[in-house]
């Protein structure tokens, strides 16, 4: 048999016919198309039973209740807790993307010990036992040398049981150097003390206020408890007037009823000018002034002599008629409130500006009354017995603090973290041998990063309790990672600016994902490692036991409902704890109050760092809800939401008025060098008509060097690299709202 070409062709045709008549091509086509529609490497999130758990967000001091949606054991979404009185179901951008902070790869997985050079990023995993013995032996060694005061601690806040445990540890150990991250709360507290004799925090009855005069406060940019402020603002859109005094068109300025553009740093002058009109036109609350105030005559004289609208106009660059108009509207409103503290409130500010602004509240008598400014007592739910201190501790505690807070030079404040780097670098105080850092990231969040880094370099032993590989953790010798906020218990005291006391309880919604430990437990365990004199003050089995005992009968309610409002609270109307028992326009708590008006509200120009000739521009940092500036960084989702007018690739854009830019020969989008007396940064120029000529605005919350690229490592510039500090003469707090700068083509 001869196989011809035809035979093969015939076979082929037969085979083709057969295949066509079989399911093979049709099924294969279907399967392949399915395969291309759903690549096997595209993740498929497993489904399961849905549960919802309530807790409190502790990513900022805003104190929002949140509801976490879970699918089996996975947390898949965070929403605001509808019933929580602070946020009523809303969340901010950071709170909403919090799961990225739980599951992100930039977390510290276990206790770590540095093996390479500091900041090099070489670590060795160690056990918790090793980690605790490492810290305790180091601290014991310092204590044995008789210098317990040479250990310092930095905490994100002074409130809450964990911060108090650290403070208590420091006390029985023998160090007065417990410092906290500064904010406008410090200035508000100092101001309330000076003018009202109060030892508490400021609350604002915004829900009942109808006229808000804001001196640069970022009402919708993170000032106070952010979500609560958003809600208050939404109400004001229909009933209420908000006037924003700002040197640039901030988001708040743009969204409020009225924006008054002001020469930067002259807010106190404007407040005094408004006082002038109110007093001159007899618009003030005579009842309050007569019955409840002291020193009015002296204040009146100062105001009438030196702050006429015409004179204020020269200083602040505001038309006198505008000053008069605002003063009349403020005084005519039923419940007006004047507030201050710039932007998000990260920089404490000038105390005399706070006094000048608060004097307005006094003039209209809107203090401790409906729709006014209230004084909240200190959080009193933590009632632990006074610890017994041994001799070493007592001697250590008698030492003056490194930062000088509470000393005769700075009697009105409890912590001055801004002075800490300076004192260390100067070497004028005693050296610091060890530093503990909790819920704080000073190497990123403090002004003049270079100086902070230099100071940290001088401290031989740094322990970080951070959950994340942030800048400070990266520069530590030992990291004892805390659970993240969704994995731990924590008490949450009244959020900033709320007018009534509320206590909330954060509860773990997922099991600890990594080999981390609650810092509260670490402190208790550490105390137990360190011998009787210290462990005696820590009688609790563990942190949860401590918390349960501290909260006592409130635990059950808090556990069930997450929050507990002190419904019996009412402010003491027009009752003050000053020596005179009255509101003091001239603070009797300040010695020689008359000398340069140091104890009286007044305005003086801020001496910004830098020579005007060398640095012709003024640089101000500006914050946004979209960029976290606290101890946690911005999440990947947040960075995705950051505008391309802020960040392009890895370049930060600084805002500048087109006219100013043209004078400098700079064009839109051009690369430039921003130089200030503190540092230098490569930036890009972005024209913005909302910026006052002669000024530059640099976004904060960028330029991380810790975390990873998804969290903004290497993206933009940290504004703290180019801004310094200016010490308030009365309180010692930082009041630098800007710095002199120059911008040159690079």
């Amino acid at each position, binding site marked *: 048999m001869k196989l011809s070409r035809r035979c093969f062709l015939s076979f082929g045709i037969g085979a083709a016919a057969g295949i066509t008549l079989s399911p093979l091509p049709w099924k294969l086509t279907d399967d392949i198309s399915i395969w291309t529609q759903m690549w096997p490497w595209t993740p498929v*999130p497993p489904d399961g039973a849905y549960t919802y758990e309530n807790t409190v967000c502790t990513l900022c001091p805003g104190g929002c209740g949140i509801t976490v949606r879970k*699918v089996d054991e996975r947390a898949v979404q*965070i*929403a605001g807790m509808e019933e929580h009185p602070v946020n009523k179901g809303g969340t901010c951008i950071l709170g909403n993307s919090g799961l990225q902070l739980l599951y992100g790869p930039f977390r510290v997985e276990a206790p770590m010990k540095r093996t390479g050079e500091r900041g090099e990023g070489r670590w060795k995993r160690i056990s918790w036992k090793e980690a605790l013995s490492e810290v305790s032996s180091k601290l014991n060694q310092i204590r044995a040398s008789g210098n317990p005061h040479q250990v310092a601690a930095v905490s994100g806040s002074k409130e809450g049981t964990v911060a108090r445990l650290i403070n208590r540890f420091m006390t029985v150990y023998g160090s007065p150097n417990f410092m906290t991250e500064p904010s406008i709360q410090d200035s508000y507290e100092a101001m309330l003390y000076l003018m009202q004799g109060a030892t508490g925090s400021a609350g604002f009855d915004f829900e009942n206020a109808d006229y808000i005069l804001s001196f640069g406060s970022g009402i919708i940019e993170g000032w106070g408890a952010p*979500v609560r402020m958003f809600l208050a603002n939404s109400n004001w859109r229909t009933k209420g007037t908000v006037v924003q005094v700002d040197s640039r068109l901030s988001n708040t300025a743009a*969204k409020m009823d009225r924006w008054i*553009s002001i020469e930067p740093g002259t807010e106190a002058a404007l407040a005094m000018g408004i006082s002038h009109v109110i007093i001159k036109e007899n618009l003030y609350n005579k009842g309050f002034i007569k019955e409840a105030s002291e020193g009015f005559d002296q204040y009146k004289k100062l105001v009438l002599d030196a702050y006429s609208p015409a004179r204020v106009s020269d200083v602040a660059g505001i038309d006198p008629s505008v000053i008069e108009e605002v003063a009349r509207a403020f005084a005519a409103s039923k419940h007006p409130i004047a507030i201050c503290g710039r932007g998000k409130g990260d920089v404490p500010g000038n105390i005399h500006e706070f006094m000048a602004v608060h004097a307005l509240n006094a003039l209209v008598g809107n203090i401790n009354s409906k729709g006014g400014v209230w004084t909240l007592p200190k959080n009193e739910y933590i009632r632990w017995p006074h610890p017994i201190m041994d001799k070493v501790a007592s001697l250590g505690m008698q030492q003056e603090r490194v930062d000088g807070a509470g000393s005769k030079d700075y009697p009105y404040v409890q912590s001055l973290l801004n002075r800490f780097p300076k004192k260390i670098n100067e070497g004028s105080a005693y050296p610091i041998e060890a530093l503990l850092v909790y819920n704080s990231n000073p190497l990123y969040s403090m002004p003049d990063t270079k100086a902070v880094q230099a100071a940290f370099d001088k401290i031989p032993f740094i322990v970080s309790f951070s959950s994340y590989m942030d800048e400070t953790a990266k520069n530590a010798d030992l990291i004892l990672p805390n659970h993240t906020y969704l994995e731990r218990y924590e008490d949450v005291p009244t959020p900033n600016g709320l007018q009534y006391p509320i206590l909330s309880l954060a509860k773990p919604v997922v099991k600890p994902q990594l080999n981390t430990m609650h810092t509260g437990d670490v402190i208790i365990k550490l105390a137990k490692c360190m011998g009787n004199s210290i462990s005696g003050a820590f009688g609790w089995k563990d942190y949860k036991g401590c918390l349960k005992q501290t909260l006592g009968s409130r635990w059950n309610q808090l556990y069930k409902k997450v929050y507990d409002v002190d419904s019996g609270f009412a402010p003491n109307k027009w009752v003050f704890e000053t020596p005179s028992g009255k509101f003091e326009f001239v603070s009797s708590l300040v010695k020689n109050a008359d000398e340069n008006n140091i104890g009286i509200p007044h305005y003086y120009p801020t001496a910004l760092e830098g020579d005007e000739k060398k640095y012709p521009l003024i640089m101000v940092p500006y914050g946004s809800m979209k960029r976290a500036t606290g101890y946690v960084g911005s999440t990947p*989702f947040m960075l995705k939401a950051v505008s391309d007018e802020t960040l392009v690739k890895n370049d930060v854009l600084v805002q500048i008025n087109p006219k100013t830019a043209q004078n400098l020969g700079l064009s839109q989008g051009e690369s430039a060098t921003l130089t200030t007396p503190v540092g230098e940064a490569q930036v890009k120029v972005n024209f913005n008509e909302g910026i006052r000529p002669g000024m530059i605005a640099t976004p904060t919350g960028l330029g991380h060097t810790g975390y990873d690229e998804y969290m903004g490592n290497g993206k933009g510039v940290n504004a703290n690299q180019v801004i310094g500090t200016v010490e308030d003469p009365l309180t010692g707090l930082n009041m630098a709202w800007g710095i002199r700068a120059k911008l040159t083509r690079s």
Partner: protein
Amino acid sequence: MKEGQHDQHIKKYGMVIDLDKCTGCGACMVACMQENNIPFQKDETDKMLSITWLRVFKLDNGKPYPDTDICYLPRPCMHCSGIGEHGHSPCVSVCPATATDYSMETGIVSQIYTRCFGCRYCMAACPYHVRHFNWWDPVWPSGMERSLNPNVSVRMRGVVEKCNFCFQRYQIAKEKAFTEGRTEIEEHEYQPACVEACPANAITFGDLLNPKHKVYKLKQDPRAFRLLEKLHTNPKVYYLSSREWVREAGDNYIENEKVDVEPKKH
């Protein structure tokens, strides 16, 4: 489907966004990303490539300091119903793959990722730029895939995606209703993630045809406007602003542009 309009089960889900209340904080954007498993990359600054179903835009009045004013405008998908409510939205009309569809039952424009073959015709057709193309396969940094929402499927490279008013939440609400013996859902049971998250309560969502729903009244507010009315796309997203320049910016005519047809009333 004309007779469908008389069906009492017919809904027209829509949104009213109060720009006076909106602060531009971006919480809605992030809530949307978390709900809808939107991927992220190391660099998201090229906004033409960055996938955001809901994006907050910044408008300005173009005046010099200190008369400058800005306004934020969150932009989800407009879910256009087209002229005469026939559901011929710009994207649905052009899709050659039947991957995008308009439902007369809910008025929602859907996108089926497995059906889409990535021709991007819809992206060209959409006047609001709400559609995004997946140029890359989504990759989550190790561990982060644990927060993915099982109710939304993860998209693969080569397909287009966009806002669907969190339709999965409608489905979940429906399931609950069925379990309780109901066939209809309440207004509060179906709210997209952005509405739920907004800390300023600036976004309202509901059935535009239902007089009991809040959006019904709000859309008749004198401050209300829609984007690019002149194109007659008939969007279901309404905006409220008390500022005239903002309302005017909603229909951004070119200078001296001739308008031959008066925008129809829908």
